[in-house]
């Protein structure tokens, strides 16, 4: 029930912020406050708790039927929704002084509504369909061009896999002796998620999207949409545990993960602009997440969640920094000395450079992998160093201030400082993140 209330409230906010779009800052602040309240509410309210509505006793968690579909708020979805809403709150707060588009708050809220619905609706076939709706809707945050078209293309191509797999699994339930159905379903699900996550060789949409679009719009896609894809993948693994038990699972994920990290790191050394560097950094981080997933077990899952949090923080910090320095097209706000610092801190976090927040989870992964695969760890370290090389090559461009632009407001400086301090502070004191 709590999930439905949250989604309903956010939908209301999306409509309200659309009518308030002329007062851009008001609408963004409203969206940020609602998202923060929903995120904290879902994180803190116990799912087993009950409340009374029109004389009926209702549980906060559990399953509810809505429009004939089952809406389930279990522990996994609780983490997912909290992540989604808090990321949304941070993005809207950063967009308040940094994003010039009028539709960021209503479209962003609408996208979050659809993503939240995808996380709680069952069966999973509806989740995938709703995710596609969210992706198509999120395109309205972009400025136009082929980057957005490629992003849309890869997600649409990913649609048939889970839907056909759903049918194959229904068939398998009727004829359990046909194990070939399971193999085909595994392949289809794996292929679709590889497309959606941008794993090598399906990665071109990731840097293409980041290259020319507004950094905060890209950050919403990489953190909220990308995060939802990860939570859905975890849901798939929980719903169909045989997926993870396949003998090829671990080796396939290791190959895909290492491939994505290495290609991202190599391309990261090139000078294709700050936006592309953000894309390559996300590729490296995605590859690391895939490797953590391939390890399986409780430690792998714990690492996975920690990496998702640290990734979101890194992406948001870097995107805010890039917005502030106007490193990509369309920046209309004033210059801030903290922009370059935030962009560098965010990228270093995504590269897993100590003592940033990204290093915390990355260190755990290296320790997990090193006893068995020391060469893999070496490749991962070198690939991460590729991003740092890219940063050093790009840094001079943003360290020279553009004096033609006015000085940014105090709010911009404060938000950037907060994001940067968080990126480093959480790395120095990681117990707030994973050792609870």
């Amino acid at each position, binding site marked *: 029930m709590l999930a439905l209330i949250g989604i309903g409230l956010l939908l209301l906010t999306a409509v309200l912020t659309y009518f308030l779009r002329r007062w851009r800052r008001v609408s963004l602040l409203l969206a940020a406050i609602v998202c923060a309240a929903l995120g904290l509410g879902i994180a803190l309210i116990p799912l087993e708790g009950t409340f009374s509505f029109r004389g009926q006793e209702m549980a906060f968690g559990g399953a509810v039927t809505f429009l004939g579909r089952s809406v389930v708020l279990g522990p996994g979805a609780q983490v997912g929704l909290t992540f989604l809403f808090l990321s949304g709150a941070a993005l809207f707060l950063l967009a308040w002084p940094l994003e010039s588009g009028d539709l960021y708050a209503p479209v962003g809220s609408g996208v979050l509504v659809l993503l939240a619905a995808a996380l709680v609706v069952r069966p999973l076939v*509806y989740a995938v369909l709703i995710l596609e709706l969210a992706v198509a809707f999120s*395109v309205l945050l972009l400025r136009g*061009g082929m980057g957005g*078209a490629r992003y849309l293309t890869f997600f*649409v191509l990913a649609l048939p896999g889970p839907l056909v797999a759903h*049918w194959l699994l229904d068939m398998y339930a009727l004829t359990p002796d046909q194990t070939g159905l399971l193999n085909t379903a595994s392949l289809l699900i794996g292929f679709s998620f590889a497309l959606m996550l941008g794993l090598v060789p399906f990665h071109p949409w990731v840097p293409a999207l980041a290259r020319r679009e507004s950094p905060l719009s890209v950050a919403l896609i990489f953190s909220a949409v990308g995060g939802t894809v990860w939570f859905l993948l975890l849901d798939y693994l929980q719903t169909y545990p045989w997926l993870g038990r396949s003998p090829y699972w671990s080796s396939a994920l290791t190959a895909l993960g290492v491939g994505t990290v290495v290609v991202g790191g190599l391309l990261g050394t090139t000078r294709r602009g700050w936006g592309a560097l953000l894309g390559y950094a996300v590729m490296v981080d995605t590859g690391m997440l895939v490797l953590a997933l391939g390890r399986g077990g409780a430690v792998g899952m714990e690492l996975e969640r920690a990496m998702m949090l640290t990734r979101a923080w890194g992406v948001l910090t870097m995107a805010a920094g890039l917005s502030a320095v106007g490193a990509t097209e369309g920046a209309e706000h004033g210059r801030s000395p903290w922009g370059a610092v935030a962009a560098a801190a965010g990228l270093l976090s995504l590269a897993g450079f100590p003592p940033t927040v990204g290093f915390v989870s990355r260190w755990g992964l290296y320790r997990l992998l090193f006893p068995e695969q020391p060469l893999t760890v070496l490749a991962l370290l070198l690939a991460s160093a590729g991003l740092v090389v890219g940063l050093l090559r790009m840094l001079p461009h943003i360290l020279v201030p553009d004096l033609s632009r006015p000085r940014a407001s105090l709010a911009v400086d404060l938000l950037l400082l907060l994001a940067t301090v968080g990126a480093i502070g959480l790395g120095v004191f990681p117990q707030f993140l994973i050792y609870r």
Partner: protein
Amino acid sequence: MGTFLEWVERISALAAPPAVVVLVVALGLVLMTRRWLFRLVGMALTYFFVGVLHTQVIRPEVVLVKLLIGAVVCLALGVTGQAAGGSEAANVSNGGDQEKGTRFRWRNLLRWREDVPLRIGALLAALLIAYAGSLRFPLPQVPFLVGLACYLLAVVGLFLAGMAETPLGAGLGLLVFLNGFDLFFGALEPSLVVAGLLGLIQFLVTFAAAYLTLARAE
């Protein structure tokens, strides 16, 4: 309404093989020409004949809804194409002879673009892949001709999306691909909610492609 449904069913019973042939022509039109009007006609024909093939696997009432979705999608594509300048080539730097705002001339129709041989090759390859695929890996729950059409739509959609130079071209490819998948999945999953959500995805993909095109044109 009843008359229309009977009419659709009658066409379906008689016209499955010709429908596939017209589908090939329509897809060829979408794939080979860059002139917006022809591509729109190709898309409209594709939607109509996919609807005809749909009647072999799902209820005619649902087909009617899908045809309506197709009509709205084509309308949106037409408006976008017109607003964007009438031709994909208008936005391509090395494009052809029709620049934004220039008048339509019939003699231009006889001129071939540089990439027409490549596009003809792509269509032939799509035909070959579709035929071989439907023979080697026949799709479950659908007749052979419908399976062939599904493969053809999916492969041509992929080629269109891959060869597109503008967001609208990519959008056309995605819509053709989704049509192929919808034709197949409609037979597997008769749920109205799934059909409705797939229709909604087509709407949103159309609007997303239109938005990306027009935002880029500005």
